């Protein structure tokens, strides 16, 4: 009896510890997508494809966002059920804080520059 019990425990143990089960195809999909999503932004900037800097910026930021998701899914094996959802919850919480920190700082400081030092804005 004890043997069976141990064996069960062992299987479960392994299942928990190696919850993010990786596969060759998963890594290759992630890698090829990343190459694609990296090469295009570099080409857009180095080749000067678009006249407008704003257009290029928006497009390469979008590519970066997509690539971050690709890395999260295919390399970091993020999903909604690993660790009972706590991985995803902490990631979303971090993303909210990140958004507030980044855009809050840029927004506040931009407005301060415009209102306090109008002569310095190019």
């Amino acid at each position, binding site marked *: 009896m004890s043997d069976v019990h141990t064996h069960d425990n062992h299987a479960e143990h392994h299942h928990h510890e190696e919850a993010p089960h990786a596969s060759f195809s998963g890594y290759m999909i992630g890698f090829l997508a990343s190459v694609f999503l990296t090469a295009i932004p570099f080409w857009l900037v180095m080749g000067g494809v678009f006249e407008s800097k704003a257009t290029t910026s928006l497009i390469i930021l979008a590519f970066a966002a997509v690539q971050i998701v690709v890395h999260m899914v295919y390399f970091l094996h993020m999903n909604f059920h690993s660790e009972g959802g*706590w991985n995803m919850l902490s990631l979303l919480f971090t993303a909210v804080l990140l958004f507030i920190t980044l855009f809050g700082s840029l927004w506040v400081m931009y407005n301060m520059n415009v209102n306090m030092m109008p002569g310095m804005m190019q």
Partner: protein
Amino acid sequence: MSQSVAVNSNLDFVVRDHHAPNGTLLGFWLYLMSDCLVFAALFATYGVLSQSYAGGPTGAELFDLPLVALNTAFLLFSSITYGFAMLQMQQGKKHGTMIWLGITGLFGAAFLAVELYEFYHLIHIGAGPQRSAFLSSFFALVGTHGLHVMIGLIWLVTLLFQLSKHGLIQENRRRLFCLSMFWHFLDVIWIGVFTFVYLMGSMT
């Protein structure tokens, strides 16, 4: 092999199961998320100061995009080779794991060497961190990322020794998982760096 060990030592298992085996992985993930906030602050600082050249050189004048592309490739290759190391680990192949881990380390070292060369070059031509607010925030952000890569490399070499000494025991598997999260996380941060700092900085 590990199975026979496990079956033979009942006590070991009871004790280990009470340790909540996946607690480490979740805890390490939470560390990475807090590290992410460190980078969020550094990105925000850079974003605010990225136009404050103080009459000094701009990003467009300084950044060498082919070099950045090379570095990006190194880091991306190191991500996929770490993935291969994890696949070898899942199949219980110690030597394969160590070989792919070694290749990952070489790519990481190449990345670090190129970045150090870039820093050395910038400081040499008088564009060091003290030149302008733009360069201070640039060195703070990119330097912090580079420091993380260096710590990852030290960790990786340590794990190579651990693996050669103890093999693919449960503790080493856990360490490999943690380092894999750390390594892929650094690649994610680098996506932000090359897009936000280098590519967007080269346009202005």
